[in-house]
């Protein structure tokens, strides 16, 4: 009897002491973040997870491409689905949405975690680690660059009384509540310094591969040329543009091949573009195709596809000189959703399905234009003119002989025409400190207007008392 009680007590004791392991259950659809990035496979999958964030509708999926057109003087909303109309009218708050902030910081956290865990991943070749590190650094630079140009002024084009700095600079990964920091906005300079640092690191680590759906050394150099242009660091623009253009990624298309480049799944001009596959179709409501055109195929006005919510302004169409091959990317849409309009057909479901298009992040012509502008700003008119005329003659236009301010204006005009409906115009006007001149019913937005900057997500202001909202909101 005593023995029995002893045994039972003993077994109870064993049960009691082993309780912790007894109730251990590990999730299977998800894994514990604390141990998630400890193998080569996991780290490789994690970097793909960062690319996935870039694809979001509020990031490159739509907003970073369509909003710079709607907010600026390039796009006019047709109100066929009602989308992009508030942005076109520059209504307060109709701007880069909270999702950009959210998506970017989610991605930045992923990147920070990858970078922190990478050095200790076992049995992973250093060369492979370098590639992942390079991609991660590139991505962090790209996300911070997009954040700062959406929410903050750009170097050299600042309305001082309204300047609240750039965005919080988060460089440490978070897995638990105790690690959450409520950071204030960093200065514009600090953020650009960090972007430079990350891009320098990326260029050092990234390989010279040629696939354009993943970043490589040339992508980093190309983006560097754009970032440097925003920072008015013209020497860096020229250096990186030279490197990028000599890197052998992306080709400068001929006049004959130009339109065809926009009709093929991957534009041969691309240095880095986001690939979209069937399950990633952004759908009939907000895809770039439905945003820009009602057409399903070029020339077929009988079948209506999307809404065609944003079409070129008359002002944009007037920039095309006679014979410009690029004008062939604009044609009359269908009347299926209301009055037919001239629409941009750069996105036409090129991946074989309606609403399924790759999104260009940077392509060769932009790098040439980046360099042309930098050279012109440096006073190197001859070299600038060479670059400008490469663009002009390829488009089927006569060579320009402009100089001085006229040269710069011509470069900016070609930049506008070349990169229209690819997400540049708003940012270009903003970094140059220019007013956004719009025709009725929209109104001209002076550069001093508070709507030049996007509104920080209200919830972030409420949660983080260190965070200052942009003026006017």
């Amino acid at each position, binding site marked *: *009897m005593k023995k*029995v*009680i002893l045994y*039972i007590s003993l*077994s*109870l004791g064993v*049960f*009691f002491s082993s309780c*912790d392991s*007894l*109730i251990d*259950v590990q*999730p*299977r*659809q*998800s*894994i*514990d*973040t*604390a141990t*998630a990035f400890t193998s080569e496979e*996991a780290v490789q*999958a*994690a*970097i*793909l*997870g*960062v*690319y*996935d964030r870039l*694809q979001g509708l509020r990031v490159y999926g739509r907003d970073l491409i369509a909003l710079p057109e709607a907010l600026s003087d390039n796009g006019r909303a047709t109100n066929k689905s009602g989308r992009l109309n508030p942005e076109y009218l520059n209504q307060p708050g109709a701007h880069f949405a*909270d999702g950009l*902030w*959210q998506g970017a*910081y*989610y991605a*930045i*956290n*992923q990147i920070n*975690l990858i970078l922190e865990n990478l050095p200790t991943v076992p049995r992973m070749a250093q060369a492979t680690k370098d590639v992942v590190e390079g991609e991660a650094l590139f991505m962090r630079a790209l996300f911070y660059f997009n954040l700062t140009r959406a929410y903050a002024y750009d170097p050299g084009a600042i309305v001082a009384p309204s300047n609240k700095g750039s965005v*919080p600079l*988060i460089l440490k*990964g*978070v*897995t*638990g*509540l105790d*690690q*959450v*920091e*409520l950071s204030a906005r960093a200065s514009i300079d600090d953020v650009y310094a960090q972007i430079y640092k990350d891009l320098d690191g990326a260029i050092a680590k990234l390989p010279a591969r040629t696939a354009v*759906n993943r970043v490589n050394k040339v992508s980093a150099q190309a983006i560097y040329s754009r970032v440097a242009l925003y920072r008015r660091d013209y020497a860096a623009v020229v250096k990186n543009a030279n490197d990028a253009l000599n890197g052998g990624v992306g080709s400068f298309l001929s006049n004959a091949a130009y339109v065809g480049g926009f009709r093929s799944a991957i534009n041969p001009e691309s240095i880095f573009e986001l*690939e979209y596959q069937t*399950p*990633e179709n952004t759908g009939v409501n907000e895809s770039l195709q439905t945003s820009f055109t009602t057409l399903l195929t070029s020339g077929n006005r009988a079948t209506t596809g999307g809404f065609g919510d944003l079409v070129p302004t008359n002002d944009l169409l007037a920039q095309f000189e006679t014979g410009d091959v690029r004008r062939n990317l604009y044609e009359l849409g269908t009347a299926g959703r209301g009055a037919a309009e001239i629409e941009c057909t750069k996105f036409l479901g090129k991946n074989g399905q309606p609403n399924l298009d790759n999104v260009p992040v940077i392509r060769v012509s932009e790098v040439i234009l980046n360099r042309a502008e930098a050279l012109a700003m440096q006073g190197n008119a001859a070299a600038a003119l060479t670059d400008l005329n490469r663009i002009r003659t390829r488009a089927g236009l006569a060579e320009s002989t402009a100089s001085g301010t006229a040269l710069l204006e011509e470069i900016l005009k070609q930049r506008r025409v070349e990169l229209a409906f690819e997400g540049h115009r708003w940012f270009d006007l903003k970094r140059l400190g220019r007013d956004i001149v719009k025709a009725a019913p929209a109104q001209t937005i002076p550069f001093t207007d508070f709507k030049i900057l996007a509104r920080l*997500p209200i*919830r*972030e202001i409420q*949660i983080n008392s260190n*965070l200052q909202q942009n003026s006017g909101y």
Partner: protein
Amino acid sequence: MKQLLRYCFVLCSLAFAGVAVAQDRTVSGKVSSSEDGSGLPGVSVVIKGTSVGTATDANGTYKLSVPANATKLVFSFVGFLTKEVDVGGLSALNVSLDPDTKMLSEVVVTGYGSQNKKEITGAVSSVKGDVIENLPMQSFDRALQGRAAGVLVQAANGVPGGQVRIRIRGTGSITAGNEPLYIVDGVQINNSSNADFVSSNPLGFLNPNDIESIEILKDAATASIYGAQAANGVVLVTTKKGKAGKTNFNLNYYYGSTSPVKYMNVLNSQDWIKVRTEAIRNQNPALSEAQARTSALTGIRLDGGLSDAQIAALPTYDWQRAAYKQGGVQNIELSANGGSDKTTFYISGSYNKQDANVINVDFERATLRMSVNHKVSNKLSFEQSINLSTISQKGTFGSPNGGSFLGSPYFASPLIIPTNPIYNEDGTYFGTPQAGGISGVLNQNILLTAETNTIRNVTNQAVGNFKLIWSIAEGLTFNSFFGLDYRVIKGEYYADPRTADGFAVRGRLTNENEQSMNFTTNHTLNYNKTFARDHKIGTILGVEYRNDVRESWNQQVTSFATPQFRTANGGATPQSASGFWTGYKRAGVFGRVNYDFKGRYLLTATLRYDGSSRFGANQKFGFFPGVSAGWVISEENFIKDKVSWLDEIKLRASYGATGNDQIGDFDSRGLTGGGFNYIGQAGIAPNQLSNPNLSWEKNVTTDIGIDLGFFNRRITATVDYFDRQSKQLLLNQPVAWTSGYGDITANVGQMYNRGWEFGINTTNLTIGDFTWKTNFNISLLENKVTKLVGSDTVLASNTSVRVGHPIGAVYTAEYAGVNPATGRPMWYDINGNPTYTPRNPTDFRVLGSSFATRFGGLTNTFAYKGLELLIFFQAEYGRKVANGQSSFLSENGGRLFNTLQEVYDRRWTTAGQLTDVPRPINGNAEVRGNGATGGSRFFEDASYIRLKQLSLSYNLPNKLISRAKLASVRVYAQATNLLTFTKWSGYDPEFLDTGAGNNGVVPQSRTYNFGINIGF
């Protein structure tokens, strides 16, 4: 001393004489119940002072060989007073036993054991199996409605075997689960319902007629033995077990019909065209009457130029009477029980089929239950039972799952424009997708959809348990228990190519398959002893472990050649395939001590140390204590046997803490998930912030109660007051996105439930063979949310959760009726002035709550000899909810929906008219006015009183049936949901909002059934 010797001698000689003249004789007779004269089977008949005896057979007769010197026979039977009868020289001895009205021996099942009801110090409600027997309800939870104080039972809908919600002592959680812990014969049942297409009830696996009793542990002190799972109360179900003796069979059959409780009185074609014309003209006064009418006619695809006479001749089609129908109810079961003193068994098989009152919704179940108890030796015995069940349920589009409510027959049938025919003249369906559907917003032919789609759910379940009982020594036993609840759910949804949903994709088939396995084991050591006669101690010490795993996969395929192809291999285009796995584990150690002094002073202390894999690393384990005490005043010397009319006064008090761990299995973890894919390769990303401090929600309940019994227990009553404080409620607390995450689940909320519970049983009349008994219970509740995230006064994700108000607050602008001058709807603004445009949230106020503050049940039973009439009313009060369907039905031609006749009749038409129904307006919103159906206008009082059960039964007299060698025959007729008294304007006030309010909800049916119950 001499005398003593003499006695000895006499005794010895008597004994010898006894041996010498020992001449056994046979005594036989019948033991019957004094209540109804029926024979009592299994009554122990023992010769007094010996262990010689027998038991009565199924008819209550016995035969016993009795030595000549025997003086008395002792007749004893559970639930009856033991009787000693002088045997004298009789050879025939019929005995009538009186029921033990004091019920002093009534045993109540409590956590990991049972207790004499007399010794209970917590708040435990008990419902006997016979109370819920043979009701046309597929799960016992539904049958509990109105039977126990403090237990609110609300059916989600009238789908047979559909979802039911039980709330014990109010709502204690905002975002975590509110379901009680269900334990069937010791097996903790996984009661999460994961059927996607059909409303299904995880408790439907058990045939309610196999239930012996249901005990509900309501107070925290009693429930705390179940620790982190007991916050919402515990429901203990005990099934029927075998009794030693002759094998008894019981055949049970009932048959009946279900029918709709109500039809809506909607407009005919002519009135609808008229009101639509008005609505169009009111919106655009520039139109002439004729122009507006043309517009109304062409809107529903009629010729705009129809003349008055042609309009008058238009037929009206009644979609309600086409969609609702009378259905059948059928139940058949056979059980057998019996055994020897070593082994007893109970086996039962049942088949149950019930239709809803709408086309193509039904429930079909077969169960097999077997339980065997066996005594290996005096020291060792085991108990085992297994329940197998298969359930097949059909559902229709949107009823309530499997598609939007717009296509649900119950939602759509009164709303479809009445000019639409149902069938073409050749009998085929009118309005096929090829033909462009039917006219109006609801443009599917709902009958076509319901008849051609396949929406089905099959649940196969096995629940089994095994228990080893080892009597180590006097008073000391060791129990080892193992339980398994295994379930496979198969879901199938075939959107037929002939329906609107399947037409474009040529048919869509979705298959789901889910398996869940739930294993429980516990081991307890029980020790009971009485010291020095007056000190009775009962202790229990135990450990428990539970492992619950759920796994599922699903697929979707489209493009079928013809509608005859209805399996995945017939589809050409696979659309998706997916799966998931989840699971949790719990482990706990617990102990309980009961102390009873002279039956007067009772004390119980409970402690459980519980751990759950769901909680954060720092909070995996916690203590759940409970203490309760009772004072049986009636056992005090100054009352006992002095006040004859007073049988019992017991004061009880208890205080305890319980936990609620019904949260996501991995809510506390920092998680990195898949699906963040790029270039066709799997990508991952962190998607949940870890919270190592995530802990259970905590309930601390104080309970004070009194149990009373008077006049030989002709009146018994139980009154309880409770105060249930729910703390550490889990809410989503937002974190800055800059951290890489959106929110975190944290223990921050607080809420309380307080209330009174009354239960009264009376025997009102006993005149000869006639008795009238009443059973009444009522609960009065108050609920209030007291704290949310930080200093928030409203929950960001749900504006009906507001600090200072009951959960489910109705937060909107109050409807102020119609401006008599203009016919426009108005609402009160913040200052109480009428406005056309109330603002959100400035003019919004809390106008009630969906929390029911009062509920109860009243049963009256009239018995005369074998005849019994039972009338059971059940009621719920204080619930205010949106009547979505009435809102649609009150648009008066604002959109292309039909309208209620009485709303049409009351509509504003002329200046100065006082009414609450605004003038018809196309689009339902006046210029610079809010939507006419907004605000509080369609929040209605869903209180109701329902004649839930009316049954008349007759036990055939023994004389009659014994000739046919039957033990008992009972026939009965029964009606459920016969009458409902309510202000609710929809089909049925009893429903749960599972996302679309009452839209598309299949209401309760009225059922009639006739049955027979034969024992042999």
